[in-house]
């Protein structure tokens, strides 16, 4: 696991969801995101992805976004790490 990506992703989630850094630091790979956090509707997901693109310097195709990729913190982190390795 790439610790920089992990930390930056936690910071973005904290910024977008308005959660305290402590709470986001407590996220495990299994912590549910989309479908588990009521704040994370489609508008919020769009904002989240755009922010991830800007701050982690990747491009996310809309086709790649699905319930699985956003289902948990671990799956989102895996997706972003795979993207960053490719670029």
């Amino acid at each position: 696991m790439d610790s920089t990506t992990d930390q930056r992703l936690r910071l973005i989630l904290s910024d977008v969801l308005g959660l305290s850094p402590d709470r986001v630091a407590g996220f495990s790979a299994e912590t549910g995101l989309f479908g588990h956090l009521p704040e994370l509707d489609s508008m919020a997901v769009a904002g989240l992805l755009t922010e991830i693109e800007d701050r982690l310097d990747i491009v996310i195709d809309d086709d790649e976004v699905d319930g699985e990729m956003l289902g948990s913190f671990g799956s989102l982190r895996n997706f972003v790490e795979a993207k960053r390795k490719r670029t």
Partner: protein
Amino acid sequence: MTPALWPAPRVQGGHTEELALICDAGRAHRLLIVPALFDAANRMRRFTIEVMRRLDGAGIDCFLPDLPGCNESLAAPAEQTPSSWRAAMAAAAAHFRASQVLAIHGGALLAPSHLPGWQYAPANGAGLLRAMLRARILSAREAGRNETQEQLLAQGGTEGLELSGYRLSAAFLTEFQMLEVATSQQRVISQEELGGAGLWLRAEPGESREQADALAAIIAVSLTSAAA
């Protein structure tokens, strides 16, 4: 802080009556505030008004007009373009005799260029549009419909598009996606200067006393030291 009406010019001629929230005590500094756009406007409205309260307390008159078609406006969003919005903000500046402007986020695209002032966290049209298109694509997918950015932009370019609950015309979309924040006599205030994360990012409308304090302080210090 009181509500007031002001006349916004219509492209077709005539005008619509629009709402503004104002703190007007006839003081020397009269600050027009151009709000953030669309969904960001809702998420940042409380923050914007908190900044106004602080500026009022610091002896600065503030005027926050609605963009026609947004917030309390009865005008049709489909009749608006970035140009008509810019004309409306120029009309509001004249009506309220603004001496400076503070543009918030996407509102920087519409700030009257003849006024000195500030652009807080300015954003370009293409980036704002991309996030709105993405939100529409994701919610369409949840409803079992498959849409793409290319297809939506092509459709929007001929017949207009509904984005974030706003019916936007082809003319609006064509102009908006090309719109970039102009370098001007207005100073850019970055999010770093306020600390924390921008409230337009928040999934739900939020507030931040610290950020409102910081933004109001930058403006109040600049205006009062210029007068001294």
